[in-house]
């Protein structure tokens, strides 16, 4: 396995472009599964790119690895787990719902509920408040003079 990756890496020393024709699996269903998985995996040597779009050689290696596992009969989850086991949580572009990450996922809805609560509270208060009194004479004079300017 390691040797295979090395050979592939050497063969593709020239800059390549994301998914190559020789990578595509003959079975379209399996290929589309491979694409979906690839889009959720981060290219480790790139900056914020998934392996499906990346031109890096390491990304190609990972793409081939994903396809190899699929051909070997792994389910989508098993493939992802296999990659995470080797490269760590860092490869996942979609953070898992484990531990402190729950905070990340809950943050949006929680902030929305909080903001809605505050907003509705404010609006209710505005609805109850009496209309503002007419301008006093002094204010009227001031308004006139401002408008004259």
């Amino acid at each position, binding site marked *: 396995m390691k040797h295979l990756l090395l050979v592939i890496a050497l063969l593709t020393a*020239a*800059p*390549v*472009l*994301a*998914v*190559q*024709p*020789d990578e*595509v699996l003959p079975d379209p269903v399996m290929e589309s599964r491979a694409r979906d998985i690839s*889009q*959720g995996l*981060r290219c480790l040597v*790139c*900056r*914020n*790119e*998934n392996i499906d*779009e990346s031109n890096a050689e390491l990304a190609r290696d990972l793409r081939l690895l994903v396809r190899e596992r699929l051909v070997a009969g792994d389910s989508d989850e098993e493939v992802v787990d296999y990659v995470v086991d080797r490269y*760590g*949580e*860092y*490869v*996942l*572009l*979609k*953070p898992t719902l484990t*531990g*402190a*990450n729950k905070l*990340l*996922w809950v*943050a*949006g809805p929680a*902030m*929305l509920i909080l*903001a*809605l609560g505050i*907003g*509705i509270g*404010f*609006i*209710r208060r*505005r*609805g109850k*408040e*009496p*209309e*503002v009194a007419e301008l006093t004479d002094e204010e009227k004079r001031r*308004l006139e003079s*401002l*408008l004259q*300017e």
Partner: protein
Amino acid sequence: MLVELGHFALVLAFAVALAQTVLPLWGAQTRNPALMAVGEPAAMIQFVLVTFSFGVLTYAFVTSDFSLKVVMENSHTLKPMLYKVSGVWGNHEGSMLLWVLILALFGATAALFGGNIPATLRARVIGIQGSIGVAFLAFILFTSNPFVRLAIPPMNGQDLNPLLQDPGLAFHPPFLYLGYVGLSMTFSFAVAALLEGRVDAAWGRWVRPWTLAAWVFLTIGIGLGSWWAYYELGWGGFWFWDPVENASLMPWLFAAALLHSAIVVEKRETLKSWTILLAIMAFGFSLIGTFLVRSGVITSVHAFANDPERGVFILLILAVFMGGALALFTLRAGVMQAKGVFALVSRESALVMNNILLAVSSLVVFIGTIWPLVAEALWARKLSVGAPFFDAAFTPFFVALAILLPIGAILPWKRAKLGASVKKLLPSLILAFAVLGLIWSIQTQKTLLGPIGLALGTWLVAGAVQDILLRTGKSVNLSRLSRLPRADWGRLLAHGGLGITMAGISGLTAWTVEDIRVVQIGESFDVAGYTIALEAVERQQGPNYITTMATMEVFKDAKHIATLHPEKRSYPVAQMPTTEAGIDNGFLRDIYLVIGDIQSNGGWAVRTYIKPLANWIWGGTIIMALGGFLSLTDRRYRVAAGARKAQTPRKVTAKGVPAE
């Protein structure tokens, strides 16, 4: 010599900015008109000095003066002239100088056009603007000086990053900075108002043009960046949720929220303290963006990788300005009393809802962007937060926004009936559902995203059209259309443009067809009803690159549609390849061709994409920006800017302008 003068001008600008900060602020506090009057000339002089300095740096780039470190690192004699000029801001030091130039420009325009603003408020605005100048000029002079010389200048430079050598990206930073820095004006207005202890309708009117201008520029800047990513990165993605992109999206969302809440301040004298807070936050997120991009704490596709010293400096600037402004806000927010009374169903409430959705969505982006940092610092977890998270967490906010927008836009001020307003929009609603059904039944892949996105887009566009028709009176009166204020037309375009962009994004995401294969020269193949032939592949020499250019013919039903030339360029100096896709732009679809490497059997790797509605994304963006611009030229701002003082109808403000 000239370079030293430019450097000197920058130091001088720093001194002037100090004076511009201290004297007018002190003058406003002690009601000393002489001190307050220092502000305007100081702002102008600062602008002239920074412009001179920027001009000198540009001259050094144009004449390829490799004794300057930045020029050596980012330029080359063979580079086309356009990219020699854009190279000025294609690096950290030069882009900071551009940032400060725009900052000084806004200060100077406030001095020039602020004639109708009360003297103390004006002095404070200019003073605060000056203090931001002080901070960033110090940042440039102490950590990022573009005028550093090399003891032994080399014969030639290292060339600009080839990805940046592109017309779309040449103008992307100036627009983006006009937006980011434009928000410094709203910040200055907000802090000045807090110092004054007064926020009224007039303040809302003064601050809105600046917000609008900043938002328009940010819209154009983000649009240009996304368009560039689409055609340059070689697979037609338009948004990556990259930290740098998020850095521009967060202030854009806040600016959009601010635009709307400033209307409430102007028309109804309520939501004042919230608007002030938004103005502070909008610029705060501009600064956070600057920090994220330039400190290197979050690596991304196009961050200027940098040393921590700069990061700490920007963090310090951020802490001083945000901390100071927010402290002032907590002290003074109580002074600002809300006046307008309104019911739960009213335009005020709708705009509160708009603000909640925009602000919270922006905070979601913020949390997602910094989460990897937080997780590593607190729990030692190295993890990534990428597109799948943002797609899931951010999109619902915009779906909700799109559903509510047309209804909120036609609700009357103060008190409204929800049922009556929805009934008025029945035609738009029916049209949207018709589109939903039609698209669902004709699409070949059964996705929900496409039909829903297009239906929401239709709802927004039709709602915006109905909105402006309803403005002409109960019985729609077309002859009144031409007499509507430009702000109404601006609103039609901005809301409609948003609909078009949303439709484009969902169409492109849902229905893109991709094809990857090896093609021999002379061979042709079919993709989604198109026949594409690879005619030839040639190597050619560009001004500073070598290109492998393919000639490909596209046919539909045996009819010739286009000849495309996808390229693969190699820049020998920078040792980097780039792809130039061959794109046939169409109203309903783009045909997007990419040439890859030669294969062992003599064929070429070719990728073909059919991208439906791609141009709607940027078309909608342009329309949105145009709407903002039209609104900016509305008579009430021109009048407010003092252009037609004498003819200002006196009673208009007293009676209240008819609802926006």
